[in-house]
């Protein structure tokens, strides 16, 4: 197993190198630069040129590339042009915000998505099945920004139950965190709940038709045991793959949610950095996020081995 992890980590290195190069290239290929953001609408061309000179972005691109990789080799991701803050520090300061929101959304997704999918599969072609599929379709179809605004109007303005936005760190005030994070997490999770429910339903339906399930029922095992131990355990492998994708979608999908609910997370940070052409922030931030998602995928691979004894990474 250890050998597997080392191998996976080593294969991640070229991925990170490619991501860094592509990000650098794309950021410098698209028109516009950070001077426009720093200068604002009132800046004269002369002032914009002065900002470019101060930032060193008027230098040849290959010099900027060499500097960037030189910094990376020394573990320095650079300094955000807009924030005047180290890229690593700025990203890591926001990481807990996005992760806590994503984990909350993942919990909602797993509980609702799995329960709805299993229930629909067990009551195949029933009203419950139809209702679950309709709900899943709604979740997949409804735009998250629209749902977010509706929730703000209903739960915050009309009922006054939850705050309209903002963020409270969990360790500072767990109840405050729960109140602030609930609406963003729901709006983030709803699409994934629909996705997971549909996948779980179809996988469970397929598994429930297998011979070993029929055998288990023939042996007289209780239905809960047949479903929980035999059918679900076997259905979990493809579901786990989907959960891996869902985690990626939750992190990347946080952009809109964080903007609407004023949550200071990675999504908001990177969006602002891209719009303002904050080159070091985009390059470094995306590199950290890529590394994180690579780790998540290695974790998913590890889960395969736990769920299916036939999967052994250290066997040849």
């Amino acid at each position, binding site marked *: 197993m250890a050998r597997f992890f080392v191998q996976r980590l080593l294969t991640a290195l070229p991925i990170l190198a490619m991501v860094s190069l592509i990000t650098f290239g794309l950021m410098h290929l698209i028109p516009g630069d950070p001077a426009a*953001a720093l200068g604002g609408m009132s800046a004269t061309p002369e002032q914009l040129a002065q900002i470019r000179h101060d930032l060193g972005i008027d230098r040849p691109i290959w010099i900027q590339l060499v500097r960037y990789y030189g910094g990376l080799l020394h573990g320095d991701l650079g300094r955000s042009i807009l924030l005047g803050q180290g890229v690593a520090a700025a990203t890591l300061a926001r990481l807990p915000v996005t992760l806590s929101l994503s984990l909350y959304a993942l919990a909602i997704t797993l509980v609702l998505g799995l329960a709805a999918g299993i229930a629909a599969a067990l009551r195949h072609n029933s009203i419950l099945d139809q209702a679950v599929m309709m709900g899943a379709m709604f979740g997949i179809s409804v735009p998250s920004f629209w749902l977010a605004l509706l929730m703000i109007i209903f739960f915050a303005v009309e009922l006054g139950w939850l705050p309209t936005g903002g963020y409270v760190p969990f360790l500072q005030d767990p109840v405050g965190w729960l109140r602030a994070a609930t609406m963003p997490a729901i709006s983030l999770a709803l699409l994934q709940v629909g996705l997971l429910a549909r996948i779980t339903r179809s996988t469970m339906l397929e598994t429930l038709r297998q011979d070993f399930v029929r055998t288990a029922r023939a042996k007289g095992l209780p239905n809960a045991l047949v479903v929980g131990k035999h059918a679900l355990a076997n259905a979990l492998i493809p579901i786990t793959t989907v959960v891996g994708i869902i985690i990626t979608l939750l992190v990347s999908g946080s952009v809109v949610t964080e903007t609407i609910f004023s949550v200071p997370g990675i999504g908001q940070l990177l969006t602002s950095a891209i*719009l*303002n052409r904050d080159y070091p922030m985009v390059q470094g931030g995306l590199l950290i996020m890529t590394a994180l998602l690579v780790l998540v995928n290695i974790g998913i691979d590890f889960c395969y081995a736990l769920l299916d004894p036939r999967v052994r990474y250290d066997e040849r």
Partner: protein
Amino acid sequence: MPKAALLLAAPLLASLAGIAQAEPFKCPHRGGDFTFGQEANVPSLDQMASSAIATRNIAMNIFEALTTRDEHNHPILELADSLDEAEDHLTFTFHLRQGIKFHNGKPMSSADVVASFDRYKRMGFERSTLDNVDHWDAPDAATFVIHMKRAQPTFLEQLSSFSVPIVIIPAEDRDDPPRQLKTIGTGPWQLVDFVPGSFAKLKRYDGYVPNPHYEDITGFGGYKQACFDTVTFRIVTEPGARVAGLQTGELQGVEDVPAKSAPDLKGDKNIVLLPLLNWWIQIMLPNTQAKPTDNLDFRKAVQAALDMDEIMDAASDGNYRLNVGFQYPGQPDYTDAGKADYNLHDPALAKKLLQSSGYKGETVAILTNKDYTSMYNAALVVEQELKAIGVATRLEVTDWPTSTERFEHPETGWNLYFTAWGTQPALGALATMQFLAPPTAGYWPPAGHDDPDVVAAWRDMTNLPSEQGRNDAFARMQKLVLDRAYAYPFGSLTKIQAVRANVVGFRPFRIPRFSNVYFRD
């Protein structure tokens, strides 16, 4: 008395005279936490190195400068107690107010002023303000002297600019890199916590010494008192969420209420809407290096086709005022010179001019962006109005940085560029017309072929010794720019700020000011 001294002394004397009759402002109620919903992210609180409005919103409550502007945009003294200008206009001697302390408790002296000017000269965003300054020094702890290379009639006007002011910082922070300045000023509010992208929290600075020459706040200066315990700027970029926060009372004030939400909020007795007239001048600039906008008759045809009411209505959802020029109505320099060329909406004349221009159906590229909805909407209307007179158009929609970069490169194929000027018109004619003067003329005259009449008017605006002479030159320049269609100002856009009904003393201004504002008991 030297002219510049008069300029500053007029409001000063008026306020001194008023002291005998009026008591300085005293908070009727102290305490409470005010949360303000701000629309834009704050990149940094380094007021010397950022011209972002979002930075100014917060930093101008924390930092102060030697001079600033009053409610009517006149230069006034802030951290300086008095100013002497030499007869030859080459030396400005600032006598500093006494007893001023920074938020870290350190008394302010001329050494701090020297350090602040040194830092600004190295990395200040508008350091060209100091180009004509030979050097500065501090003969004693309470005096700061600026020595000019040559007389510059507009120097004090530029020095008092609030665009990127030369704020006074502790001398020990002089080497802080750009956008990493420690947030320690002398203002009535001091920083408690700042999380970029989320919030900035300020608290009342109990060691603040108000300016005794005034009785109340005026512009960015005057007699300031912090009444709230804390003020928190919360970044709420989504307009719907800002309005919702105001309705629930989570936010006690917000900026930029969407025009479509205003009618609903008007009926809410808990909310007071505060229209901020003249937020910016919506404008379109032609590329005079590219065909067909290099042709005067073609540019005049465009001018004749425009219906400013239609354009501004779309741009602002009805919150606008027509405005012929480059200053806001009511400002001291305001002039309607050139009004004969404004808001013609005469398609017949436009078609006639189009014909005389020799236009052969070339496609006109309209460069706009979606980051600023008003610019995008204005471009949509202009496109239709040009199509109506027979001009082939192509709308090129990018984001703001791309749009700005292409504007700087007239060879990139654009003809009409959409932008807006907000802060500069508020600062005065000089700050605004620099956009239309060489070497940075926004209409892009071919190199070496600047319009000599415009250049002459600009020189007079900057060099004539009398204020009247400079104002006349401004009127001349505005008329020339409109007559030769070097710019198409559409009108002034209104921005709506709002507060909860229990907030007293909040007056709409270019930045939200939280001094002399309090909660009703």
